[in-house]
């Protein structure tokens, strides 16, 4: 079974801090994604990557960056955390285009 592991289930940070959210998948998947999930807004795509060292902006990339130095790991970085980035963050991977995504359990991030 595919496993997508997110480093933290809950995280509390302060405004202005640089925040790193880590995601690791164990099935050699090409594609990895970062979403945030907010009530009434559903899942919104922040960034995605179809290969190592490759990244593409999703629908809401402002205030975020990503890093994919190794195939199995996709990191989301909040450069200077703000309270409006308080949310549930979900990482996902898929083996190729046209395949379903496998999700991690999510990181509930609170910015105070």
């Amino acid at each position, binding site marked *: 079974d595919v496993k997508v592991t997110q480093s933290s289930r809950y995280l509390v940070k302060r405004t202005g801090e640089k925040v790193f959210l880590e995601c690791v998948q164990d099935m050699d998947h090409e594609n990895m994604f970062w979403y945030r999930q907010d009530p009434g807004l*559903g899942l919104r*795509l922040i960034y995605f990557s179809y290969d190592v060292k490759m990244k593409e902006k*999703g629908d809401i990339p402002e205030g975020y960056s990503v890093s994919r130095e190794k195939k199995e790991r996709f990191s989301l970085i909040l450069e200077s955390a703000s309270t409006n980035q308080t949310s549930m963050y*979900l990482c996902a991977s898929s083996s190729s285009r046209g395949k379903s995504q496998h*999700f991690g359990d999510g990181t509930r991030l609170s910015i105070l």
Partner: protein
Amino acid sequence: EDKVVQSPLSLVVHEGDTVTLNCSYEVTNFRSLLWYKQEKKAPTFLFMLTSSGIEKKSGRLSSILDKKELFSILNITATQTGDSAIYLCAVEANSGTYKYIFGTGTRLKVLA
């Protein structure tokens, strides 16, 4: 702009009832439509639909796609309390790059 709309936003039923969840979409270069179930943690994959009129079935759950009218339905028969969850609809589209667009989800609560 690509969009996916789910209805209803929330639903409360009693065990044994049958429910129908709706997902309509407007996207550039439709590739596939996917249904996920999200309980406390990670969304889990239910169905992927690519062709019109072909029902996919798994136990008490079934789904069908209408590519002419641009919608899909997810049916759950003889509902159980374990069906309580958020049901997410996502569409894979190619608007320059491949990506998944999610609806806001339908929150289903099944009462004993």
